[in-house]
């Protein structure tokens, strides 16, 4: 059984007990434990079930590569699924539950899949569920959905906060093992600004566990000294618990700092996402040990040799009293020696190599360990935990030659450099036969903006052996600092005095000639249940590309993204295809290196600060009145102002009728206001608008249309000529920023010699529309400038004062009523609005919202950008030919409009539509024509673009685009409704109210 030893454990504090629960069981551990080590200390070997066959799963690893020990962590608003027990720091009150089983971890009905495993081969989804067709929807999919998924998504809102922060440095070192610390030190000595990230809460990586001696002292002491030195240096930032998970263009790195995962609810942010710009990046990310592919290598109790060693040395936890070590390399001997030195027994070291030699092997022999060379594991006995192993010849087919009782197996298939971050931005890899792994190809690095290498790999991540580890890391740190513009200084490099001898056997299966039955029990990917036989099947079925094999078998597609399984799977595939590994290639590494919680990516961008809102100076008043708002771009505009028990429709109708009968106020501050000034301003606007603006007299307003170069209408608005060289261009609310940018684009990039400046004044002014037959009376009640028809005719503007406010008044109308749009400096907007309300009280003044605005304009047949236009409509379609100059040789969009299909006579053009029964035609409804198209759908001849109930007219009003529309006045069209039935509507003039325009020109 797995247990806590009486002594040892360099990271734990035995004086403090920490309580936690697993599946409701109350257990204890110590500070310094991971959840995994604490579970092992409590003999909780079984921690989960695999994805497909629901086989029992135990802890395999001791780091982020863990594929099995995924748990639901926390409860309620702090529930997080799929948390790796091996990287979860233990804390008092931690609650964890296991995943992917029903009804319980011990007895799981889904394990029936395991019994029928031979009917669930690789690609079984693609093969099995094709026929009969209806079965997919009604049988297969519901069953698969029921059984799919590991953890459960939390139902409650996340109780925690997350934040993001920015950092800049010359050299970013990712990885705080001895290589990372050496690289950081070498870089920092040049004066470079250095940031060092370490994913664990403690520094030094594997070296202290492996018993390395660095610079003549134990690794732990060297690490302490280096940390002290680095902490004392200017411009060095050390961040533990922080995983650099993605490398992006030009030295951009994202890193996730787990600030308070181990202290939940203490008021700090849970995670901090670092957005780092580094001139150069050093990846000192170490290496990950690979499993070995022997039969039943997935039984709980079979662990990576390094994980056994980690748990033993760091937390004094042994996975069993008797541990068989299986290896193809020297490093696993360290585990055997460490176990024996801790007083545990190692019945045998099973070494696949025929004649291993080296210092560690000599040491194991000297300790009297039984070393079985040229041997393999034929079988692991036990189901929910290891009971023993059977040995066979590695060269043979798996005939059992011996059996050994044991309760744990420590396996090592060699070490793979962690090349993920090197590869994220295009760094290429080399296959290294001596390592039996891919390592970074320094000749083909990812490059940064200056063309130089962006990432430099260091230490084990670069494939360096232990003897060269620090010199490699030192060189990486120095050259990174030099590339960032710092001058390197000579300094001595510490040496590892007891390095591991190189020497690794070939990758492959164990035993090498295993029969199919055994290969079907050799797990490559523990989480997704991908076995050696699955990859071989894929190869037989023609999946020669590793990318296809991956998707067909799901190898490496689990939450660990193949950290353990990729190289072994490649080895199997390369043998099956009889091609060397480099030819088979490897899959693409993409960010993130480890899963990142969505909370960290969202950061503070939630609730009210998800998106900054734009508010007019009068916004607060609208809120106080209980206005119902609608989003218009980033603005929030009042849709209507309900009174008493009114619903929105009733409020809108009241507001409309009040504008038509009395006077209404509209907050039009969101309208774009762009000042265009300079000697060439008129010439410039003649190019931008389809009409002529240069001839507009000072003091007058003119309606204008803007098209893009393709000819399509993109914005409209009223232009006022302020003086000889100055125009104020109104744009739509949503168009202000876009149109300003559009103007700047042409001025800067095409007509850069024209003397014109633009300024977007949208937020500098509040603009209030006073609209209705009593609008003039309201302004006269305010008192001030002459607003009579004679002094200020329709489509004129004037400066003056009203009610003591300095104002600019435009006599323009978007409603068909007598209308003044009055601009005041933004700071006076609310005061002027309030003054208008007071002055208009006796006149029945009411504010109105955007919906009333829409209905008022639709009754008058005025178009709305975004309703009547959709990016495929030209002004000619909308009957706006009068606003297009025929004389001008050029304007933006003129050439586009000359294209044959835009000049064609059968385009859909604007008309009014009036339902025969007076109803409101559904928005977006299509008018059907005779016959069907090649898809068997009814032909269409038009569509509704705006449709409202008009309280003024007591019936529906609508506009639409209809083929040959204006030539077909009086014709009746059929508009089918969603859900059956049709509306019959007559083609009429778009102007439904006050055709002669007498109301607005009074």
């Amino acid at each position, binding site marked *: 059984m797995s247990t806590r030893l009486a002594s040892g454990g360099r990271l734990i504090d035995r004086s403090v007990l920490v309580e936690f629960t697993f599946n409701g069981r109350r257990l204890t551990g110590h500070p310094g434990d991971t959840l995994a080590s604490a579970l092992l200390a409590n003999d909780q070997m079984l921690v989960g079930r695999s994805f497909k066959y629901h086989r029992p799963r135990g802890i395999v690893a001791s780091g982020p590569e863990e594929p099995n020990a995924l748990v639901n962590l926390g409860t309620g608003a702090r529930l997080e699924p799929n948390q790796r027990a091996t990287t979860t720091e233990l804390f008092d009150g931690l609650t964890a539950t296991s995943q992917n089983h029903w009804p319980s971890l011990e007895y799981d009905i889904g394990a029936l899949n395991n019994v029928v495993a031979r009917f669930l081969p690789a690609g079984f989804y693609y093969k099995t569920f094709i026929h009969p067709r209806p079965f997919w929807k009604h049988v297969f999919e519901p069953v698969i959905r029921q059984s799919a998924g590991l953890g459960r998504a939390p139902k409650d809102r996340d109780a925690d906060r997350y934040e993001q922060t920015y950092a800049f440095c010359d050299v970013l070192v990712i990885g705080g093992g001895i290589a990372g610390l050496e690289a950081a030190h070498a870089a920092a000595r040049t004066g470079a600004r250095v940031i060092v990230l370490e994913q664990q809460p403690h520094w030094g990586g594997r070296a202290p566990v492996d018993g390395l001696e660095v610079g003549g002292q134990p690794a732990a002491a060297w690490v302490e000294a280096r940390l002290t030195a680095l902490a004392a240096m200017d411009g060095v930032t050390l961040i533990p618990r922080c995983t650099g998970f993605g490398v992006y263009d030009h030295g951009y790195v994202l890193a996730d700092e787990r600030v308070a995962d181990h202290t939940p609810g203490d008021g700090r942010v849970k995670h901090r996402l670092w957005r780092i710009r580094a001139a150069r990046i050093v990846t000192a990310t170490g290496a990950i040990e690979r499993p070995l592919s022997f039969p039943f290598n997935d039984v709980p109790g079979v662990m990576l040799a390094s994980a056994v060693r980690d748990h033993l040395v760091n937390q004094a936890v042994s996975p069993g009293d008797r541990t068989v070590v299986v290896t193809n390399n020297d490093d696993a001997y360290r585990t055997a020696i460490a176990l024996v030195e801790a007083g545990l027994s190692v019945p045998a070291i099973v070494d696949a190599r025929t004649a291993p030699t080296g210092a560690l092997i000599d040491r194991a022999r000297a300790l009297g360990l039984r070393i079985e060379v040229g041997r393999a594991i034929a079988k692991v006995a036990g189901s929910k935990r290891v009971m023993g192993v059977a040995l066979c010849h590695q060269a043979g087919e798996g005939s059992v030659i011996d059996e050994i009782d044991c309760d744990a197996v420590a396996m090592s298939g060699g070490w793979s450099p962690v090349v993920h971050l090197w590869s994220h931005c295009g760094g290429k890899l080399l296959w290294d036969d001596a390592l039996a792994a891919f390592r970074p190809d320094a000749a083909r690095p990812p490059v940064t903006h200056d063309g130089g290498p962006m990432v430099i790999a260091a230490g084990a991540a670069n494939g360096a052996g232990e003897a060269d580890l620090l010199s490699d890391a030192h060189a990486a740190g120095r050259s990174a600092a030099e590339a960032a513009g710092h001058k390197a200084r000579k300094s001595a490099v510490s040496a590892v005095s007891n390095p591991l001898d190189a020497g690794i056997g070939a990758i492959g299966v164990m035993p090498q000639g295993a029969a199919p039955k055994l290969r079907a029990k050799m797990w490559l990917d523990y989480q997704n249940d991908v076995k050696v036989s699955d990859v071989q099947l894929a190869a037989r079925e023609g999946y020669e590309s590793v990318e296809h094999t991956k998707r067909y078998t799901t190898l490496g597609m689990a939450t660990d993204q193949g950290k353990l399984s990729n190289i072994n799977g490649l080895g199997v595939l390369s043998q099956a295809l009889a091609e060397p590994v480099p030819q088979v290639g490897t899959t693409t590494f993409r960010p993130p290196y480890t899963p990142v919680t969505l909370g960290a990516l969202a950061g503070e961008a939630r609730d009210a600060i998800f998106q900054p809102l734009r508010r007019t100076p009068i916004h607060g008043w609208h809120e106080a009145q209980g206005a119902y708002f609608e989003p218009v771009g980033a603005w929030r505009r009042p849709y209507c102002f309900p009174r008493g028990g009114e619903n929105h429709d009733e409020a809108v109708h009241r507001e409309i009728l009040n504008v038509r009968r009395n006077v209404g106020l509209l907050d039009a501050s969101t309208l774009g206001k762009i000042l265009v000034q300079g000697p060439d301003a008129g010439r410039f606007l003649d190019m931008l608008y389809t009409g002529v603006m240069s001839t507009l007299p000072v003091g007058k307003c003119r309606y204008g249309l803007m098209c893009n170069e393709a000819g399509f209408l993109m914005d409209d608005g009223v232009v006022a000529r302020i003086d000889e060289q100055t125009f104020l261009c109104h744009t739509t609310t949503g168009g202000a920023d876009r149109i300003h940018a559009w103007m700047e684009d042409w001025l*800067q990039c095409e007509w850069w010699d024209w003397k014109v400046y633009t300024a977007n004044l949208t937020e500098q002014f509040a603009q209030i529309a006073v609209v209705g037959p009593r609008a003039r009376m309201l302004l006269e009640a305010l008192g001030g400038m002459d607003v009579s028809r004679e002094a200020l005719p329709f489509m004129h503007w004037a400066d003056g004062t009203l009610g003591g406010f300095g104002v600019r008044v435009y006599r323009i109308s978007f409603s068909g009523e007598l209308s003044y749009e009055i601009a005041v400096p933004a700071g006076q907007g609310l005061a002027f609005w309030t003054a208008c309300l007071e002055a208009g009280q006796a006149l029945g003044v009411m504010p109105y919202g955007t919906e009333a605005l829409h209905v008022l304009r639709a009754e008058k047949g005025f178009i709305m950008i975004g309703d009547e236009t959709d990016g495929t409509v030209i002004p000619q379609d909308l009957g706006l030919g009068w606003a297009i100059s025929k004389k001008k040789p*050029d304007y933006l969009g003129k050439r586009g409009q000359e294209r044959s299909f835009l000049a064609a006579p059968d385009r859909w053009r604007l008309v009014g539509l009036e339902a025969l029964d007076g109803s409101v035609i559904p928005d977006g409804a299509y008018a059907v024509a005779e016959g069907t198209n090649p898809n068997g759908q009814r032909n269409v001849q038009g569509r509704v673009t705006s449709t409202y109930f008009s309280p003024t007219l007591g019936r529906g009003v609508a506009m639409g685009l209809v083929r040959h529309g204006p030539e077909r006045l009086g014709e009746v069209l059929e508009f089918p409704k969603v859900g059956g039935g049709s509306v019959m509507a007559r083609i009429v003039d778009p102007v439904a109210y006050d055709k002669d325009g007498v109301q607005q020109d009074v």
Partner: protein
Amino acid sequence: MLILTCPYCGIAADETELAPGYEAHLKRHGPGSTDDEFEAYMFARKNPKGVHFERWRHAYGCGKWFLAARCTATLEVFGTYPAQVGAPPPEIIARIKARRPGWEPSA
């Protein structure tokens, strides 16, 4: 997340400060142009793997449009320059040729 140096204000600007404007050095064809000319101006865009000239605007900075020469495959930036030119300046061409021997500007 590119970094491009704005040639007007000299700031090495993060991509989040910039707005893209696609291919640079397009010649405008207005009224009087042939259908082929207009099609080339409106629609035919280069999408090379390698050296490319692009328009960028320092939208959340000085607001100026500028042009950038960069490699679309490696993201190496050969240089940025003001937009008020009809063709890439000679020093930019020279820098590209130094970094990409054999490269020639297309017509």
